[in-house]
C-alpha cells in the first residue's frame, strides 16, 4: 500500500535525521520521518544498570531488540556467526526516536582543522584509504555553531589553546568539575597540559524551556528525567512536528529504497508498526539510519542500473567502516575520589590530538563517565583475579577510589573494514542482515599505546599509587561511534556522495549521518554529524526547486 507522496522521506530519527527533518519542514517541505524504534522516557528504565544503553547487559533498552535483529561476524574458523544487538560485536548504537542522542554521554566536540585534512597533515599511509575531506573546518564552522545553539551546548573554549577558531562562544556556561575533575586539573597543569571543562550537549542553565542538569549518576546510557540532556528527540524533532509539515512514523522499519527505471529514487519500502509492507513515495530520499544501517539499506536496494545496491556502482558503499580505538588508563588512589556527581566526565585535554611524534593523529583524553557497579567488575589490573574473595575485596576497596582517563584514538580508514550483506541470514521481517568484518590498522594500536601512556602519566601525577593501561583489541569496532561507510568526496570512483551528501550516482538520494565521515577525528563524533546534517540540509533547501536540482 502506498502512502501519499511527499517532498522528502527521511530514514532514521537520530542525530542526523532529526536535524534534516526540522530544517526541511521549517522550510516548507512536506516530510515523512521514519524511525524503526519508538519514543522513550527515563521512567521506563531508571536506575537500572543492566538495562541501560551503556552495559546493554540484559537488553538494549533504547533499541533495537534482541528478538528481531541480527548480524553476523567472523567466527574465527573461516565462517560467520550470528550476533544479537546487545552483544558487543554487533556494533549497536541505538534504535529509538532520538537515535543515539536520547541516551548518549553528550560530549559535544568540534573536530579540529587537521581532522578534515588528515592526508595533507600525515601523508599517504600504507594499508589505509586515508583521505582529506572535500570540505574544510572553515566550511563547517557556522554549522557547528548552529548545532551548538539549536541543540544546546555548555562549555568554555577559552581554556583550551587547541580549540579550533570560532565566531561565537557556547550558548551556555561550562559545568563545574566534580571531585575527580578538581583532582585532575592541577596535576594536568603541573605536567604542562591544558585541561578544560568538556563541552556538553547538556544544559548548565535553563535553556530553550528545558531545565538545567541535576547530575544524575545514571546519565550516559539513560534518557534524562528532566530533559537537561539535549538530543534530537527533545529539540529539533518537536520543532519539525510543530510545523505541521512533518509526519513522524515510529516502529517503521525501512527495507529498501525504490529506484525507478531511470535510475532515480522514487521512495522507500517499509514495514509499518503492525509489520504490514508499505511504500512511501517521495521526491527526495535522505538516509540517516547511522553508518551501518544506511549502508545496509543501499546494499539491499538492488536494481538493473545498480546491481550492487543503490548508488554503489563505485563499489565503495559499506567500506572504510570506522569507530574509535578507545583506550586509556585506570588509577587507584588511597583516598575517596567518588562524589556521585553525574555524569562524571567533566575534564579533558586536547594536547595529544595531533602532531605527536611518530603517531598518526591522536585523540582527546577525558575522565570517564561514572563506572557503575556491574561494569566496574570488568576493570581490574592485569593478572588480577576476576572472581572470588579477591574480586570482592577489590570491588569494595576501589569502587570509590579509582579514576579512569580515556580517549578515542582516530582510526586510519581501512578499505576492508566493512559491512556487507549476509547471503543467508535475515532479520524478523525477512530483510537480509549485515556482516561486519575487519581489523584495525596497526598504527591505531600504536596510537592507543601512546595515548594510554599519557593517561597513566596524568593519573600518576594526580596521586594514583597504581595505574594500568587499557588497550582495545584488533577487531574493528563500529558501535556507538560508527562512521565512514558512505564517504563523501570529489571523485565518484572513490567516494559515495559529493561534498553535500548527495549520492554521486543518484541525484535525489542523500546521506546525512555518520556514514559521510571521511575520517572520524580523535573525538566523539556526534556534533560533527549534527553540523553535517545542517550542511546537507542547507544545500537541499538552496538547490531544490520543487521538481529538480538547479
Amino acid at each position, binding site marked *: 500500500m502506498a502512502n501519499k507522496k511527499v517532498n522528502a522521506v527521511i530514514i532514521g530519527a537520530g542525530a542526523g535525521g532529526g536535524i534534516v527533518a526540522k530544517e526541511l519542514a521549517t522550510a516548507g517541505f512536506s516530510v515523512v520521518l521514519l524511525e524503526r524504534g519508538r519514543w522513550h522516557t527515563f521512567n521506563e528504565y*531508571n*536506575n*537500572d*544498570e*543492566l*538495562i541501560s544503553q551503556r552495559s546493554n*547487559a*540484559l*537488553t538494549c533498552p533504547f533499541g533495537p*531488540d*534482541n*528478538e528481531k535483529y541480527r548480524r553476523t561476524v567472523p567466527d574465527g574458523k573461516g565462517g560467520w556467526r550470528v550476533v*544479537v544487538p546487545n552483544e558487543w560485536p554487533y556494533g549497536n548504537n541505538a534504535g529509538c526516536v532520538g537515535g543515539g542522542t536520547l541516551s548518549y554521554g553528550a560530549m559535544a566536540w568540534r573536530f579540529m582543522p587537521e581532522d578534515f585534512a588528515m592526508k595533507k597533515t600525515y601523508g599517504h599511509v600504507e594499508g589505509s584509504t586515508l583521505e582529506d575531506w572535500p570540505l574544510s573546518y572553515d566550511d563547517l564552522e557556522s554549522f557547528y555553531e548552529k548545532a551548538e545553539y539549536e541543540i544546546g551546548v555548555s562549555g568554555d573554549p577559552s581554556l583550551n589553546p587547541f580549540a579550533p577558531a570560532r565566531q561565537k562562544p557556547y550558548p551556555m556556561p561550562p559545568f*563545574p568539575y566534580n571531585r575527580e575533575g578538581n583532582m585532575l586539573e592541577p596535576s594536568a597543569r603541573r605536567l604542562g597540559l591544558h585541561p578544560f571543562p568538556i563541552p556538553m550537549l547538556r544544559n548548565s542553565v535553563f535553556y530553550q524551556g528545558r531545565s538545567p542538569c*541535576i*547530575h*544524575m*549518576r*545514571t546519565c550516559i546510557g539513560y534518557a534524562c*528525567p*528532566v530533559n537537561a540532556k539535549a538530543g534530537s528527540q527533545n529539540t529539533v524533532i518537536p520543532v519539525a512536528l510543530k510545523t505541521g509539515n512533518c509526519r513522524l512514523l515510529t516502529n517503521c522499519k525501512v527495507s529498501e529504497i525504490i529506484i525507478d527505471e531511470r535510475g532515480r529514487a522514487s521512495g522507500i519500502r517499509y514495514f509499518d508498526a503492525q509489520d504490514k509492507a508499505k511504500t512511501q513515495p517521495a521526491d527526495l530520499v535522505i538516509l540517516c539510519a547511522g553508518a551501518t544501517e544506511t549502508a545496509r539499506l543501499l546494499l539491499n536496494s538492488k536494481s538493473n542500473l545498480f546491481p550492487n545496491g543503490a548508488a554503489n556502482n563505485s563499489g565503495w558503499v559499506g567500506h572504510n567502516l570506522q569507530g574509535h580505538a578507545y583506550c586509556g588508563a585506570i588509577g587507584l588512589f588511597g583516598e575517596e575520589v567518588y*562524589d*556521585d*556527581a*553525574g555524569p562524571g566526565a567533566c575534564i579533558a585535554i586536547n594536547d595529544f590530538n595531533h602532531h605527536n611524534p611518530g603517531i598518526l593523529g591522536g585523540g582527546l583524553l577525558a575522565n570517564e563517565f561514572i563506572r*557503575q*557497579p*556491574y561494569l*566496574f*567488575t570488568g576493570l581490574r589490573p592485569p593478572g588480577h583475579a*576476576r*572472581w*572470588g*574473595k579477591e*574480586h*570482592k*575485596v577489590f*570491588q*569494595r576497596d576501589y*569502587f*570509590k577510589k579509582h579514576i579512569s582517563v580515556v580517549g578515542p584514538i582516530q582510526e586510519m580508514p581501512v578499505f576492508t573494514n566493512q559491512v556487507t550483506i549476509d547471503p543467508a541470514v535475515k532479520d524478523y521481517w525477512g530483510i537480509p542482515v549485515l556482516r561486519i568484518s575487519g581489523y584495525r590498522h596497526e598504527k591505531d594500536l600504536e596510537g592507543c599505546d601512546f595515548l594510554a601512556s599519557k593517561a597513566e602519566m596524568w593519573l600518576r601525577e594526580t596521586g594514583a599509587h597504581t595505574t594500568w593501561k587499557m588497550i582495545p583489541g584488533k577487531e574493528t569496532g563500529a558501535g556507538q561511534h560508527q562512521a565512514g561507510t558512505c564517504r563523501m568526496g570529489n571523485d565518484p570512483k572513490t567516494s559515495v556522495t559529493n561534498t553535500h551528501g548527495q549520492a554521486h550516482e543518484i541525484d535525489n538520494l542523500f546521506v546525512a549521518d555518520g556514514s559521510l565521515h571521511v575520517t572520524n577525528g580523535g573525538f566523539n563524533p556526534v556534533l560533527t554529524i549534527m553540523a553535517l546534517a545542517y550542511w546537507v540540509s542547507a544545500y537541499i533547501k538552496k538547490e531544490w526547486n520543487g521538481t529538480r536540482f538547479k
Partner: protein
Amino acid sequence: MTDYSRRDFVRIAAAGAGGLFFVSSCISKQSRWFFFTDEEASLAESIIACLIPADDFPGAKEAGVIHFLDRQLVGYHRRFQNLYRNGLANTRKSCLQQFGKCFNDLADEQKILFLKSLEDNTVPGEPWKDMASSDFFNLILDHTMQGFYGSPRHGGNKDYASYRMLQLDYPLIIGRHKYETD
C-alpha cells in the same frame, strides 16, 4: 499496543519482557524454579557462592543471585539455556570423574581449584570435548556479576546487598544533587 488482545499482550510481554509474567502464571506447583531443576539449582548456587563468596558482606548466594539466573534464563538470557544445561551437566560429570564426589561435597579449596581449571580449560576428561569449559565458566561468571551488582528488580542483589557493600546510595533519588552538591 492499542489493538492487541489480552492474549497477544501476554505473548508479547513474554517475548519482550522476558517471559516472567507468562511463566509465573503457568508454572507447575512442584518446582520452585522457572528454569533449573532442583539439582541444577543446587550446583549453580554452589558455583556462584565461590564466584562471589560471603565475608563481612553477603555473597552471591546470600544475595539471591540464583534467582536472578533462574529468572533471566527464561527471560532476557533464554538464548543461553542450552549452554547452562550442558555446562552444569558437564561440571557434574567431570567433578565425579575427577574426585568421585559432587561439586557441593568438595572442600572449599578444591572447589576453587576445580573452578580455576574450568576457567583455564585445563579440566581433564571427556565431558568437555564438545564445549570449552571456559565458555560456560565465563557465562556464569558474567551473569553472577550482573545478578549481584544489578538492580534487585531482576531477582538478585537482595536488599541492595552490593550497594550497601559499596556504600552507594540507594534508591537513587531524582534531583538529589540539585540540593546536595554545589
